[in-house]
């Protein structure tokens, strides 16, 4: 008996610091999801058919999908026609060369509820106006007219730049088959899981759960009844699928139906998931319903544009096909299908639909020092001082919620921060930035300006649509700004403006938009009740997943206006949706100082990257609890590669600023942070690429090496851009790591010593300060080796360039430079400089140049030479012969170098190498 007691206690202790699974609905606890899983067991045939097709515009084919009902159901339906059909207008739109959009709506809807018929919209909701980037869509319209051939039972359309993609459409039942380069890649509704629950009047025979159910002490009343949308998309001959973040799970998505090891679909439902677990399909703070698959030569992607509660059930079929069953509670059925040669194509096409990544200010790529909380002005300035004294570079210091008075955002706690303007000025004198927390919930307190502004304005309304919904969050009783309301941005702008308490007149103040899922402590599943009413008469259930995105949008816009459109705004968000990449960075929320969270962070970041959200990071060190020395060091050594590189700690955690460590632990952390600053030119260039084509910053190997299927599932190594390969050490007591490098045809060099690696797999011994990082042969990497205190301090410093030979002695790479702050680059005020190594010598090409960058130059070139045996002569050749001169070449262990080279990056040059 005694023994039994002890065992129980042990179990309890183990589980008490984990997520409360019972607080979140599983598919079986969410009636719309379970209905569709049941539907999938035996989908009825002959229900849906396509008719009335209009081929006038092949880029926008329209028609109607009819849903046939039996007489009883026809009676119950709100919008059935005389023949007992519900009409579902659809359109098949060629958005760009690689992208077809299949959009299905429902006509004849009206609200059957006396209280709400004038409050709620009868339309199905689409978040598209918040998500799509119409300017880019316009810019990237299809370059070639598609070609079409129709028959009695369907039609076939060729599209794409070279008409190398094709869709075959069958009418009854509706089915779409996509082919790329002659190979089938995707089928839609192959298993007849297409299901759109039309609006109907409540019937006595209806199961109760269709209209109402109770979960976590809350009753959800669905006045519109069942109205889910669901569809199967089958990735043909793809063993793996990726994407649909955010989950703390492996990068390779697991099979979640009976073919897999986890019998619960991935859920996309933004929640403040307190103390989340790793290896979990549970929902998290953000959602991007975008799934990708790749094999050598072909790739296919599906973007399910729906912001309601969504589950994605993944299964393996016929050994090589992977099926995704998409299930959303409400909204339109809106599917974007991308095809291409590789994931790269999918991602750029997706970017041309939802927008590319915002170009951040340079400081945003530096190291961010955060903690809940630097309690006083004095303490914050002390941290700033200590960082300098210990030579730990950093750009941004953060204040968590306690900067406020009574957790009233927009108001400083003047007792603890008596002169915030002076504090910010002091930081500004060192070119450093301050970020303060600013959430979308507002304390209920008449007389408090934000409350007064919003309570009768753009607030989320109660379930009657009458007045502002009041719930519980950090400040106690709170109301929420409705980001969907067009008035919201003006209110937020007014509150964030200069001269107001939040930022006074500081020029270096930025914002952190947290809790925007929204997190509602008193709500169901820690979020807003689904029957709350938003702008336009939509229920929260329709808009839920895009809410955080709209808050992110308006906060970014408010800040942009605060700086009069002259500076790129910086806002960090926790919640996000497809399209959020247009605004700025997100982080992976409240992780824990445990090894599994360090391991999981990489997978989540890679997953977010391929799903179009490149500017992300995880809290370095782990938010909850205290990391031991080893974990803290390893986390810095991995975190310094995260696109968003921030250390953060919980209120109950010990202080752990880098300078509190003793040597040699301090040295290891300092080195990791300094490495990030060394690589800053490379990172900035990658962010520029992400702003053009939505390329990830950290890339899974399969993104860069689509022809090497053996590395498709590798997720403990990744590429930083296309030139660097990193393998952070993420296990406790590691003495060595086993490195796999893709593609035997390539040379790989150790980043710091330039030694070529003998082959793969390769066992690498790792000490506490080892950071395995490799340069891909054939690339040119731009670095800055002078260690400064922040990015701005480095701006004038010269470059050190690594030229890494490939097998043929060639290499190529470029660097992007602008003022790091304003939008002047949009008007051509930037440098794009390329260096190429050929048989003749080293060529410098200004791909784009602008005045004002003449002072920037390369002070050193390191040639990672592979098999160089002799240091060559090198002569800078110019048109005027008398100006030609010999480079100072010097033999090195790795090959050779040009010393004190003084090569400009704003004009062309050529160095002949003998």
């Amino acid at each position, binding site marked *: 008996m005694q023994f039994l007691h002890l065992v129980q206690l042990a179990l309890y202790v183990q589980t*008490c610091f984990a997520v*409360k699974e019972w*607080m979140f609905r599983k598919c079986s606890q969410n009636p719309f999801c379970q209905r569709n899983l049941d539907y999938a067991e035996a989908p009825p045939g002959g229900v849906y058919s396509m008719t009335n097709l209009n081929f006038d515009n092949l880029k926008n084919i329209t028609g109607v999908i009819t849903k046939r009902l039996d007489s009883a159901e026809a009676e119950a339906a709100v919008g059935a026609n005389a023949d007992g059909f519900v009409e579902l207008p659809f359109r098949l739109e060629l958005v760009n060369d690689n992208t077809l959009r299949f959009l299905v709506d429902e006509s004849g809807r009206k609200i059957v509820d006396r209280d709400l018929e004038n409050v709620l919209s009868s339309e199905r909701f689409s978040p598209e106006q918040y998500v799509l980037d119409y300017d880019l869509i316009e810019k990237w319209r299809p370059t070639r007219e598609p070609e079409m051939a129709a028959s009695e039972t369907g039609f076939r359309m060729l599209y794409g730049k070279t008409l190398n993609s094709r869709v075959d459409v069958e009418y009854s039942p509706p089915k779409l088959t996509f082919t790329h380069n002659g190979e089938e890649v995707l089928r839609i509704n192959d298993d007849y899981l297409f299901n759109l629950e039309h609006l109907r009047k409540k019937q006595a025979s209806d199961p109760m759960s269709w209209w109402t159910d109770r979960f976590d002490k809350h009753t959800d009343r669905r006045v519109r009844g069942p109205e889910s949308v669901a569809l199967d998309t089958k990735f043909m001959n793809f063993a793996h699928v990726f994407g649909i973040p955010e989950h703390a799970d492996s990068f390779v998505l697991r099979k979640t139906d009976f073919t897999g090891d986890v019998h619960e679909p991935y859920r996309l439902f933004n929640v*403040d998931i*307190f*103390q989340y677990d790793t290896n979990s399909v549970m929902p998290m703070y953000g959602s991007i319903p975008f799934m990708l698959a790749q094999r050598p030569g072909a790739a296919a992607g599906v973007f399910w544009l729906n912001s309601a509660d969504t589950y994605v059930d993944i299964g393996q079929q016929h050994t090589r096909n992977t099926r995704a069953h998409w299930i959303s509670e409400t909204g339109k059925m809106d599917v974007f299908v991308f095809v291409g040669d590789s994931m790269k194509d999918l991602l750029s096409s997706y970017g041309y639909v939802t927008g590319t990544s915002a170009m951040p200010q340079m400081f945003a790529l530096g190291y961010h020092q955060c903690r809940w909380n630097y*309690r*006083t002005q*004095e303490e914050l300035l002390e941290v700033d001082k200590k960082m300098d004294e210990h*030579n730990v570079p950093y750009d941004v210091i953060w204040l968590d919620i306690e900067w406020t008075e009574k957790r009233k955002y927009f108001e400083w706690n003047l007792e*603890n921060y008596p002169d915030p303007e002076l504090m910010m000025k002091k930081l500004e*004198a*060192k*070119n450093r930035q301050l970020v303060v927390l600013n959430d979308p919930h507002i304390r209920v307190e008449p007389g408090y300006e934000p409350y007064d502004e919003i309570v009768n304005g753009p607030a989320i309304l109660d379930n009657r649509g009458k007045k502002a919904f009041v719930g*519980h*969050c950090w400040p106690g009783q709170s109301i929420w700004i409705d980001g969907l309301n067009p008035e919201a941005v003006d209110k937020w702008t007014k509150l964030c403006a200069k001269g107001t308490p939040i930022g006074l007149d500081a020029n270096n103040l930025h914002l952190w938009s947290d809790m925007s899922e929204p*997190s509602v*402590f*008193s709500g169901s599943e*820690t979020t807003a009740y689904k029957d709350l009413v938003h702008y336009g008469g939509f229920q929260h259930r329709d808009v839920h997943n895009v809410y955080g995105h709209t808050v992110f949008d308006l906060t970014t816009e408010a800040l942009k206006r605060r700086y009069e459109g002259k500076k790129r705004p910086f806002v960090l968000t926790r919640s996000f949706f497809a399209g959020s990449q247009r605004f700025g960075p997100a982080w992976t929320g409240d992780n824990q100082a445990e090894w599994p969270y360090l391991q999981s962070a990489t997978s989540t970041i890679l997953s977010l990257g391929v799903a179009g959200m490149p500017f992300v990071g995880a809290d370095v060190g782990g938010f909850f609890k205290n990391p031991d020395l080893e974990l803290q060091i390893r986390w810095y050594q991995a975190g310094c590669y995260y696109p968003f590189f921030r250390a953060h700690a919980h209120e109950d955690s*010990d*202080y752990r600023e880098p300078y509190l460590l003793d040597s040699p632990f301090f040295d290891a952390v300092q080195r990791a942070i300094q490495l990030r600053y060394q690589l800053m030119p490379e990172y900035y260039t990658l962010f520029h690429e992400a702003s053009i084509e939505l390329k990830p910053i950290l890339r899974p190997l399969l993104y860069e090496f689509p022809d090497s299927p053996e590395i498709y599932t590798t997720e403990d190594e990744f590429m930083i851009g296309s030139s660097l390969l990193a393998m952070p050490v993420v296990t406790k007591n590691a003495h060595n790591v086993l490195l796999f490098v893709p593609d035997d045809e390539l040379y790989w060099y150790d980043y710091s010593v330039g030694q070529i690696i003998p082959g793969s797999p390769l066992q690498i011994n790792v000490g506490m300060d080892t950071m395995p990082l490799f340069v891909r042969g054939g690339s040119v990497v731009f670095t800055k*080796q*002078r*260690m*400064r*205190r922040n990015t*701005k*301090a*480095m*701006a*004038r*410093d*010269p470059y050190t360039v690594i030229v890494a030979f490939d097998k043929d002695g060639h290499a190529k790479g470029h660097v992007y430079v602008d003022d790091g702050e304003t939008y002047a680059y949009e008007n051509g005020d930037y440098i794009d400089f390329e260096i190429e190594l050929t048989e003749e010598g080293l060529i410098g090409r200004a791909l784009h140049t602008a005045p004002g960058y003449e002072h920037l130059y390369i*002070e050193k070139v390191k040639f990672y030479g592979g098999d160089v045996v002799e240091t060559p002569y090198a002569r800078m050749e110019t048109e005027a012969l008398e100006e030609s001169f010999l480079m100072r070449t010097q033999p090195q262990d790795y090959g050779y170098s040009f*010393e*004190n080279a003084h090569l400009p990056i704003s004009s062309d040059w050529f160095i002949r190498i003998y």
Partner: protein
Amino acid sequence: MFLKVLALASLVSAETGESSKDTIGVRGVSPGNATFYIPDEDGMFACLAYPDIKISFDRVNDNYCDCPDGSDEPGTSACSNGYFYCAGSGNFLPSRYVDDGVCDYDLCCDGSDEPAGECENRCAEYEQEKENERHKFLQHLDKGRQIRHSYIHEAALRKEALRNKTTELEKEYNELTTKLKNLKVDYARIREEDSDSTADADSLQALGALRKTMNTAQKQYKKLYKELVDALDSYNKINLAMKKMVEEYNPNFNDPAVKECIKEWISIPKLPAVIDYQPFTYDENLFSKIKIMSYDTQQLNQASWFEQLQSMVSEFLGAWVPVSESSQIKNVGSVRAQAVKDVIDDSVIELKEMKKELAIAKKSLKLDSDFWGPDEVGRALEDICLTTTTSEGNDIEVCLFGQARMGNSNSVVSLGTSRGIREEKGHIVIDFVSGDPCVYGISRTLKVVFECGDVHQLNSISEVDACVYVINGTSPLGCAPVAAHELPGSDIHDEL
């Protein structure tokens, strides 16, 4: 040769502007090192720490690092291990601060760490500020030392007084001991004399036993009552803490332990009106009356009253009093003997208290400068307590040679007991150990660090580790004589 140096010097000064006027020729070189920054006869420069490595002098400050010790680039940021000499402040700063777009006036008041024209020369105001600071510090130091000196005087006086008190106490103690010895002899004699007069021996015996029972019961009651009060106090504190948790807990933390705890708490029946609880007041008079009555021999005849009393007492107090004591009837003696016995009992108690007092005084005397600090100065501040408030609004009280506590109106925790004064790195430190346990059962500890100041003051408090607190403060205690080089503003050194 000479011309070349001049040319270089003018080049450098052209680049760095005003600031280089203060140095001789080469930017970032200290006067003490100036002689090394002249080309040798071959026009070369020898790296300072590696004189074997020579480079052409035009590579000095050419913004490219050549010397392993960074000495060829004193005026640029090219060498990560280099140093820049700032003439205005007369000190070195790391090369990373050179030309980084930040005017580091704190380190280099003339702004020469940045290219000419980017920073102004603020040396005058920094000098003034430094001078003011120094002046202020010296004033504080002076005043602080005077106060400290007066403490030493006061401490000596107190020690003397304590010593006198001890002597006096010892004397009194001895006298009382003698008196007690005599009393005991008297008592024995009276008992001898009384042994025959057993007129109502049984009653007397019973009375004696009853009296003893009453005394015991009284003690027990007092003890139980105190325990009850303590328990109620604890209960009230727990109740308040739980109430706070129930009202203010953050459901976002969704901690099942918290939820479970709250649920459990709600289910436990509460003491009725706990806050207004009026404890049963212990009636001293009642006990006195009973005692007096038991002496009153006239009452002895009223046997029935006595029996009633006896049964009542045993009934009501029986539960508290061990049976053996209440039922055992001993021959205690006559009333006269009892009177003497009373005096004896009182004397014993008095002696005990005296002994305690004496021990405390002796202990305090025995503690030397290891506890009271140099010159036993702490004696002067034995009963001083300082207070401050944390940024979370908790009050802190630090009794320098007693307890340190932290808390608010709801709860107070001990941060430990003073271990006396010690010195650490020129500061006066008082450690407090064995405070109330916090997380994981670790005892809280506190370290108070005093710098010199003319008033006692606690400044910042920080929790440097779990349950380990540090408070910085000022006190005249910290104003020990210091060497001149430790004064602020005297950290000027001229060489690398």
